[in-house]
């Protein structure tokens, strides 16, 4: 059963790394009601920067704040295009995403691989000092768990601040924000900045874990993020004590678990996406998605 345990661990690692991206999509899609397509560009942006920094022997732990900052700039760009230039939300994201495709290639040169001799956050000296006795896969589990939980808690704290409450108000009732004499544009920009900083961080950790950046790795990440947010929030819709961030974290792990099941079933590779679609549908339907339907039964 050792193999089984490792499979679960591997799935958890993937789920927790991509949960950072899901947090980001949760902020824009669920809280701000802003369909932000920047994600497909800011995710590989984080990986591109990390790959370049790592191959230039920058301290691996430094890559985390740097990608957060640069991802924030990507979000800022979308925010400014939308708020200041008055471009529609979807288009603003598309513009930044398109530009980022070229920018990412400009940063990394081409698809980039980090050699094994370079230390990552999973093999760097401080990690080894604390967790050196563990096999790499469990080290990865501990490190990604810490990162996923720390950012979840930070977000939970932020949502309770005045600024965080305003952020939630913009999505729910933007008129209210205006009557409070606050600029809802600025708040939208703040949301996009935080969101894309997290998305880029997710790309950064993927690069640490995979030791590679590829220009196409961002394709479909928005869809992934949306799926995890919807899975997570619908599953825990009736459990108020479960925070949105927790729900999204679990959604992300479930998504990766679905892929794992599809792979492990050994079904024809071309059917993988279809099987995932069926699994999602099952989760959504059984997760009592339709409140109305439940009432009718009762």
């Amino acid at each position: 059963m050792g193999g089984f345990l490792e499979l679960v661990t591997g799935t958890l690692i993937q789920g927790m790394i991509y949960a950072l991206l899901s947090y980001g999509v949760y902020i824009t899609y669920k809280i701000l009601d802003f369909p932000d397509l920047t994600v497909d560009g800011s995710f590989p942006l984080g990986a591109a920067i990390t790959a370049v920094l790592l191959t230039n022997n920058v301290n691996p732990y430094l890559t985390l704040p740097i990608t957060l900052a640069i991802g924030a700039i990507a979000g800022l760009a979308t925010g400014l295009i939308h708020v200041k230039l008055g471009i529609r939300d979807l288009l603003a994201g598309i513009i930044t995403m398109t530009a980022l495709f070229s920018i990412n290639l400009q940063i990394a040169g081409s698809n980039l691989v980090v050699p094994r001799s370079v230390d990552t956050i999973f093999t760097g000296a401080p990690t080894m000092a604390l967790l050196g006795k563990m096999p790499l896969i469990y080290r990865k589990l501990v490190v990604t768990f810490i990162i996923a939980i720390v950012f979840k808690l930070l977000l939970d704290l932020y949502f309770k601040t005045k600024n965080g409450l305003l952020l939630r108000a913009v999505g729910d009732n933007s008129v209210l924000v205006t009557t409070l004499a606050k600029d809802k544009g600025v708040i939208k920009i703040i949301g996009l900045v935080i969101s894309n900083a997290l998305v880029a961080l997710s790309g950064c950790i993927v690069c640490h874990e995979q030791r590679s950046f590829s220009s196409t790795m961002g394709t479909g990440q928005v869809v992934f993020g949306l799926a995890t947010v919807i899975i997570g929030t619908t599953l825990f819709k009736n459990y108020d004590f479960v925070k949105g961030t927790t729900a999204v974290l679990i959604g992300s792990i479930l998504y990766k678990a679905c892929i794992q099941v599809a792979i492990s079933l050994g079904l024809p590779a071309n059917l993988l996406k279809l099987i995932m679609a069926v699994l999602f549908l099952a989760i959504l339907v059984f997760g009592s998605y339709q409140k109305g339907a439940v009432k009718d039964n009762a």
Partner: protein
Amino acid sequence: MKNMKKITCICLILTAIVLTFTGCNNNEVPVIGILQYGEHASLDNCREGFIQGLLDSGLEEGKDFNIDYQNAGFDDAIATQIAQTFSSKNVALMCGIATPAATACFAAAEDKDIPVVFTAVTDPVIAKLDKGNITGTSDKLPVDAQLDLIRRIQPNADTIGIIYTTSEPNSVSAIAEYQEKAPAYNFSLEVIGVSQQSEVTLAVDRLIAKGVDCFSNLTDNNVVGVLPSILEKTNEAGIPVYGSEVEQVKLGCVAAAGIDYYELGKQTGAMAAKILKGEKKASEIPYETISEYGIYVNKDALAKMGLTLPEDIAQKAIEVKNE
């Protein structure tokens, strides 16, 4: 009632997960995990050749090895998960077909130092797949041979048109080599870089308008993916298209100096067999580039363009029919 539903759902999913995980890998036969980046004729040939190479080395499927074949559908995140699954199942060896698959395998193999064999990787040095418990075969294009072939078939041609995807490292390095070597064969190049597949047909129109004498293809996934529509346009304009491997000639390119991916796979399979038998470690075998390339011609396509093959080429060329 509602909770019942939810509990049933969670139970169902959990049983599914447990069933799928426990069902795997209970016997003693070493398992080879093959991770192919996507469904693609050339990559399929690699895989089939790889298995043939293992059999040719005297290994028997079911007794000496079992194959666990997975396909990532050109999705990097899925490739990562598949490679990790291989590692969890303690496969004896991983085989990565195409660069992203090889990279994913190598990353997942780091923990347990599982040997990795790759194939269809153009530049193992740039892809950092040249050091460690890893070896394999490169599918670098024989650019000199291709330029020579074009010169022989079209002695009066001046310009070769090439379309490539700027984000594919394989294509970028091939273009650099073309640019370096074309002058020696008195060719000038018209190169158009695209960022996605939908731009390819636009690029074809532009190259035709610029009056190139022929097209030459790389092993660029985006371009090769729409080859039939490219050929439709070039056939109408009467411009011959040269391929870079046998599958492209089957689709209607006039000729190609290229590698046979099946042979490449076989060569890779033989290397993997050495590792499985314990004769050598992957780290001790340097990666190989195929030295023998084949010349493939499509007589129908040549005739349509009014081109004839020089006698000596016709003798060594392998004839391929339209498929």
